[in-house]
């Protein structure tokens, strides 16, 4: 219980800090005044622009934390991360099309839709490819993921070269790919909250199966788990979660990898507590990283994915070193 209270408090602290953070730091007093309905433009900036963004960042982190925990559980590999099965490449391709091809649909709608479709479609494609190739085990799926990601990456690069010009800049695409939370309207934020809740419910249903699977495939079969079916389901569920995160936050590196590990320090390896803990940790990480992204280098904004990668890279190396030694 103490652990949950601590995690919740850390998240609340991170959210408060993030709302204050920006090129123009707000004081807690400014915040109270803004929430009370002050009409000054700076107060309205806090309410209309910064708060939705901070909350969106938290939801994106939550989804990445969930997705990461599911993928590490399914592949029984602590180095698994949610973008492994092509979702990153697919989402980036979808976003590139939305940003560069004039379709006549508002970009604010098209971008998340195509990013989601790309992420989810790429994962389904990877699973299909690995089935056709007869490589239905985890390693086969991962390899199919690498191949598909390479193809999608090449396609995206070509589109970027061919379609960008003075008015539609490469930088818009690049900055999306490097990760960045789009500030939603309050209505869209509500939608994101509902999606996040649904994703949480969906992944919690996998918790029992993931625990059994963790004992090894033969043991899991012995416990009555249809391993192949469960793995396919879990991967699809995990990619819905990741696709939702990608649609709202772009590609945010390493959070899905790191959050479950940090959560395990708090709550151990069982998935029923691990999933919510990983979600909370993910939310804290992205909230703080997004605050740094906005505040560190005024008047510019550093792409969020760069912050998480710079902080997450060393974490990954430590993890690898630790794994190789044991």
């Amino acid at each position, binding site marked *: 219980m103490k652990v949950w209270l601590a995690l919740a408090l850390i998240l609340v602290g991170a959210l408060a800090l993030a709302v204050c953070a*920006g*090129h*123009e730091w707000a004081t807690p007093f400014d915040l109270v005044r803004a929430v009370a309905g002050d009409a000054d*433009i*700076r107060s*309205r*900036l806090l309410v*209309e*622009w910064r708060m939705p963004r901070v909350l969106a960042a938290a939801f994106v982190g939550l989804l990445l934390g969930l997705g990461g925990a599911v993928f590490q559980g399914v592949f029984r590999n602590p180095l698994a991360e949610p973008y492994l099965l092509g979702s990153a490449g697919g989402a980036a391709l979808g976003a590139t099309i939305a940003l560069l091809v004039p379709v006549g649909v508002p970009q*604010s709608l098209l971008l998340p839709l195509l990013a989601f479709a790309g992420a989810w479609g790429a994962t389904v494609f990877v699973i299909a490819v690995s089935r056709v190739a007869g490589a239905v085990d985890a390693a086969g799926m991962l390899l199919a993921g690498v191949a598909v990601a390479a193809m999608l990456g090449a396609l995206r690069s070509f589109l970027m*070269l*061919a379609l*960008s*010009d*003075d*008015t*539609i*800049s490469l*930088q*818009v695409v690049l*900055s999306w790919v490097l990760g960045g939370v789009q*500030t939603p*309207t309050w209505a869209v934020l509500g939608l994101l909250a509902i999606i996040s809740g649904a994703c949480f419910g969906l992944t919690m249903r996998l918790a029992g199966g993931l625990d059994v699977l963790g004992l090894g495939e033969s043991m899991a079969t012995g416990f009555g788990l249809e391993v192949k079916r469960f793995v396919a389901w879990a991967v699809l569920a995990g990619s819905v979660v990741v696709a939702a995160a990608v649609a709202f936050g772009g590609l945010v590196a390493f959070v899905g990898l790191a959050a479950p590990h940090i959560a395990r320090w708090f709550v151990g390896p069982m998935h029923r507590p691990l999933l919510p803990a990983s979600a909370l940790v993910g939310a804290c990480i992205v909230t703080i990283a997004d605050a740094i992204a*906005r505040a560190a*280098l*005024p*008047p*510019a*904004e*550093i792409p969020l994915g760069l912050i998480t990668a710079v902080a997450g890279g060393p974490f990954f190396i430590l993890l690898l070193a630790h794994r190789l030694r044991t």
Partner: protein
Amino acid sequence: MQTSCGMVILTAACALSLSSITAEPITVRDAFDRAVTLPASPQRIVTIFASNTEMVAALGLADRIVGIEAYTRYPPEILDRPLVGGRLGFSVDAVVKLRPDLVVVTPARQAAHQLVDPMQRLGIPTIVLMQRSVSEVLANIRLLGRVAGVSDRGEQLARSLETRLASTMQRLKGRTPPRVVMITGRLGNGLLLVTRPGTYTGDAIELAGGRFALGGRGVIAQVSPEAIMSADPDVLLYAGSPADRDELIKRPGWSEMRAVTAKRAYAVSRVELLIPGPRTIDGIEHLAALLHPMASEQ
């Protein structure tokens, strides 16, 4: 004899300094086809990008500019204004801090992407300007004049620029346009950025009496040096310093090109041809003189 742009600004500003400042609400449609309404003539303008800053300044409104971005270098009197963005993007916070009553932005880099939506939500009038042709640049000057409540000045400035364009075109009448390639940048992998048709710079080349040696409308902006060599243009333009041009044309293969042997590889001004503002007309006049040296002596 060419009228310099500075003189035009000065004349426009002097002649119309007493023109009335409207207090009526102004509604215009911008390049994104958004209806933008200003309650009154704006007094605190944030201009994103050099082109927009130059146009507002050319309307004699430099003193109303309260914020610019990091790569704006002209006119000198606005260089002390606070920066609201640069290479890494644009800051909503920094713009709001300046409490502008108008933001002028162009969808280049990430500016429109990052600023239009938040400004709309916060109720700060924001107009988006595009410049796909020289006539669109002139239309932008008129639009900015109307938005800023100085339509007469906008009209006068645009008209004087049009007169200069017309007289340039008059001089070039009946001349054979040389085949031109304009290089605007070099990429690390050896590819070169070239000006394409359907852009204001491409338009400027054609107005100055040139035609494209390379490709049609669909051509990609990055081309290989080989493509330029095989196109073998009559005139090679390099938007940059003469030293950089020399460095390029001394490379193997380049020295045999028609334009290089005929000493028609020119370095041209980046600010005149790559910033879509009033100075673009200066650029067209200078370019016309390079492409048709005989015509400009008449």
